[in-house]
């Protein structure tokens, strides 16, 4: 069947890359991009970083493309501010309220939504941070010097805390787990990275849950399980995300921690592929089923899903060594591969001292006799060398030898200045 109508649901990073890849692959048919938000597609990582920094006036929203690019260069019909409400795989249509959008090939890139604390949604001053509008609200509150409580010491929560700290407002992070960041970085490095907060004057309370968030119309305080009360003008909840699949209930797609796909990002339903934070797929590079929540995978999957959807006969598996970064207090944290390891070894750096050019923290993750992950703090020159090694299936021994060589070279260089 010739594919004439290509539809993408979700107008963010993965969706944008899908429509761009379709045109790049030479697709000449109709393309429709459907998005729930009224904004043009924009970039999320800056929303908890640069976008929150003090500035004269409002910084420009991080839009990826101008509207004219969609209309003129890409020939894409935008349906923004219009959430898809239903997928009918028999009739091959996406329903958007009462409108029907027929497709021959479809990429679903509806991403994920921030989890809220039930009951706290209606209180002014309580925020999640996933969208541009969320970020603007947090920004405005910080501009007013809001005393800030961040709930959840994950990466996004930590970035917000670090931004608030930079502005000199009072900020506390509350984390229910005894050690933060364990799921993302493992038990060895999680606490080390979390120590950056205290080092920079942000208080971090771990191992204590939130009992209630209180206030009349506006938030006034956060009460912890142990009875501690923390006064607050702004509460930002950073307790993770849920894949946006509600609109697909009953569609026949398999939903299990996102949309369940195969190696080619195919849902198993003719013509329907998925990409980005919403997709769970077996990552052939690591040999495990995963759902990513990072920029790199969303961008690459968007393009890969579009190419496969438009030429299913030649569909290619999508594999990656996962990568994410996070910026706090002027240091850069980078992770490649998986934190799921038998052993984590610090190959460079002293965790008792703050990370710096002369104290890069570099940790390697071993599974069996293979290198499966690497984490660096201020190790921008090192991290990608490990990503290449993991891609090539490097042995643990080789990775350690490489680390030793690089450590010596770096020490020699520092001694020379």
């Amino acid at each position: 069947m010739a594919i004439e109508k290509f539809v993408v649901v979700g107008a963010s990073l993965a969706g944008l890359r899908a429509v761009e890849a379709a045109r790049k692959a030479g697709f000449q048919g109709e393309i429709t991009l459907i998005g729930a938000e009224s904004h043009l597609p924009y970039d999320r990582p800056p929303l908890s970083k640069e976008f929150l920094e003090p500035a004269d006036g409002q910084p420009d929203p991080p839009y990826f493309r101008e509207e004219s690019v969609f209309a003129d260069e890409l020939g894409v019909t935008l349906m923004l501010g219009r959430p898809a409400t239903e997928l009918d795989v028999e009739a091959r249509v996406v329903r958007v309220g009462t409108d029907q959008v027929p497709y021959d090939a479809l990429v679903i890139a509806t991403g994920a939504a921030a989890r809220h604390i039930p009951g706290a949604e209606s209180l002014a001053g309580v925020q999640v941070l996933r969208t541009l509008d969320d970020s603007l609200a947090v920004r405005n509150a910080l501009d007013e010097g809001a005393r800030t409580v961040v709930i959840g010491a994950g990466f996004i929560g930590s970035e917000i805390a670090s931004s608030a700290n930079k502005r000199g407002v009072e900020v506390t992070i509350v984390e229910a787990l005894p050690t933060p960041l364990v799921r993302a970085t493992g038990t060895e490095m999680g606490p080390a990275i979390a120590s950056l907060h205290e080092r920079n004057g942000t208080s971090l309370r771990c191992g204590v849950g939130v009992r209630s968030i209180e206030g009349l119309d506006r938030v006034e305080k956060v009460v912890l399980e142990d009875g501690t009360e923390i006064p607050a003008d702004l509460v930002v909840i950073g307790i993770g995300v849920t894949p946006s699949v509600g609109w697909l209930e009953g569609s026949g797609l398999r939903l299990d921690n996102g949309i369940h796909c195969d190696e080619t990002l195919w849902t198993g339903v003719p013509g329907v592929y998925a990409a980005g934070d919403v997709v769970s797929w077996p990552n052939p590079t690591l040999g495990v089923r995963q759902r990513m929540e990072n920029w790199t995978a969303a961008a690459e999957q968007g393009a890969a899903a579009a190419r496969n959807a438009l030429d299913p006969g030649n569909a290619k598996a999508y594999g990656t060594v996962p990568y994410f970064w996070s910026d706090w207090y002027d240091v850069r944290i980078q992770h490649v591969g998986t934190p799921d390891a038998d052993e984590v070894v610090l190959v460079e750096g002293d965790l008792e001292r703050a990370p710096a050019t002369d104290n890069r923290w570099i940790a390697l993750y071993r599974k069996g006799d293979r290198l499966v992950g690497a984490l660096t703090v201020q190790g921008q020159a090192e991290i990608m060398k490990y990503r290449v090694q993991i891609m090539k299936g490097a042995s643990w021994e080789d990775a350690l030898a490489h680390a030793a060589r690089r450590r010596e070279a770096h020490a020699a260089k520092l001694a020379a200045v």
Partner: protein
Amino acid sequence: MKILVDYDKCTGLGICESLAPDHFEVNDDGDLVLLEEHVSDEDIQAVEEACAGCPTEALRVER
């Protein structure tokens, strides 16, 4: 074919280095160093993936 870098946009995230290590490297200061600006037919695919993979959209290939 030649690689063009917008250094105002690049923040040294290094994706490009992992995809095309013969062309890109991030140095100790976290700045991108272009090791080889010319792209051969052999390398073009890797370099294009690096351009597409850059989270700040700082890279382009001029043909």
